[in-house]
């Protein structure tokens, strides 16, 4: 079987069994329990929560990210197996949101991690969240959700930005 065809089949298979990582990074995580449990029940889409990053496919950035969390999120993202996808919730990861002038939150997520799908709203309603899942499935089907390839390709740029946010290049905390 040729590589492209195999790719296509694996995409169809992975689209129907996306496991999301159970990591509540911000306040958007409060709309995840309704999505995960009986009222919206995302298992209808074949999605389920997964505790370990090694087995998860989707990383949900639920809202704002503080610098301290970003370090963990980057660790977690790098532990995940490819193909892996990132969904960002709400306003904060797009352009800072409510915390646009805060000293401790990173404002634009796409400078540190490749984002596949953005959901609007503060909080996004569960319907919005489900729309994002459906959109991600569509993108995977079409082979367009390629954030992880982008992360590999521009790894140096992403690493540089992450280090800048963590403060290494500001020259103030070399000791860390």
């Amino acid at each position, binding site marked *: 079987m040729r590589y492209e065809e195999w790719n296509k089949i694996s995409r169809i298979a992975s689209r129907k069994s996306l496991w999301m990582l159970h990591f509540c990074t911000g*306040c958007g995580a409060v709309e995840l*329990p309704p999505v*995960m449990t*009986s009222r919206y029940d995302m298992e209808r889409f074949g999605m389920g929560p997964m505790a370990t990053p090694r087995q998860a496919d989707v990383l949900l950035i639920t809202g704002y990210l*503080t610098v301290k*969390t970003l370090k963990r999120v980057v660790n977690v993202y790098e532990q995940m197996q490819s193909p892996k996808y990132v969904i960002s919730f709400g306003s904060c990861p797009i352009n800072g949101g*409510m*915390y646009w002038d805060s000293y401790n939150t990173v404002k634009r997520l796409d400078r540190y991690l490749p984002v596949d799908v953005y959901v609007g709203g*503060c*909080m996004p309603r569960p319907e919005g969240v489900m729309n994002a899942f459906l959109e991600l499935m569509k993108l995977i089907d079409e082979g367009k959700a390629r954030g992880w390839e982008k992360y590999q390709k521009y790894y140096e740029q992403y690493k540089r930005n992450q280090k800048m946010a963590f403060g290494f290049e500001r020259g103030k905390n070399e000791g860390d």
Partner: protein
Amino acid sequence: MKEYELFIGPQHPGVTGNMMYHLWVDGDTVTKAECNVGYLHRGFEKLMESRNWMQNVPLVCRICVPEPDVNEMAYAMAVEQLMDWEIPERAKYIRVVILELARIAAYLMSIGSYAGSLGIYTLPQWALGDRDYFLDIFEQLTGARVYHIYIWPGGVRWDMPEKLPGLIEKTLSYTEKRLKLYDDVLFKNRIFFDRAVGIGKIPKGKAIEWGVTGPNLRACGYGYDIRKLEPYAVYDDMDFEVIKYPELGDFDVLSDGCDAYTRMIVRRLEIEQSISIVRQALEKMPEGEHIIKHPNWLKWKVPPGYAFKRVESSKGEYGYFVVSDGSNKPVRIHVRGPSYTHGVNVAETILKGANMADVSQILFSLDVCPPDIER
């Protein structure tokens, strides 16, 4: 035996949100615990100093995610005190309704996640599903499911829609029916008796000194509730009894209090209490205005002074310390979150000597909510 270090969180289903506990473990007994927070620190108090009095209203509700209304209430009361405003009667009743509904929703979430930590996965599905009906009410009343921005200084933002009391009554009676099922699955379940009794004990004489508040304090046998001690809104008009250990209704009193078991039973009983308060408030609600006229938001100046207002949230005592110097921006707003003591000092102390398998249920039974530790 050799001692191991163990990190629980921030990416872990067994902690109550985005926080971390650093545990030293000997065998499977915890010998030392250290709380590591700051993953959700957004610098609210700094942000509030650079926004004016009205612009802070959408900000404060983001401090506690599962139950945002207590923040709005405490902030609004503090500003009203500084402005010397008397708010309309109807607004007070609507405030009680929404605060109690939010309390029920928060308790359902806490019960659901606690049951999840015991491995009883039926109850998270039920409780969080039923909580969603309360979010439906919030949406029709306030225009948003989670962050309501509804209690404003001077009243409430919108009047209650005419058909809403009917929906609330229907949801409440549905919840009452469901609570019987919860009892069968969790609160009268043998697994719960065997696992929760005597776990996570707060020493009895120490509870007040350690700053334990809310349901956790009432589970220790102290009948202290801010709704009774310092009645705000119209709580002095409502007829309710403070639930405390050992008055646990038709639930068995299996221990001498202060443990995970009693804390969860107190939460379960307070849902019924809240249901009765909502019913009373809906019944007694007068007609009239729902908000007083605000000054121009952009030029609104608040007289100088200190104000401290407390409300009872589902997690414990919430306090807002507001300092104004007479300008259009606050000098300082300090928030006292209930989890500040529960999550850091109390948890660090009572986790010592606990079994590894019980760490998660102790944290869920204390109802630690990291956003209000860090703000």
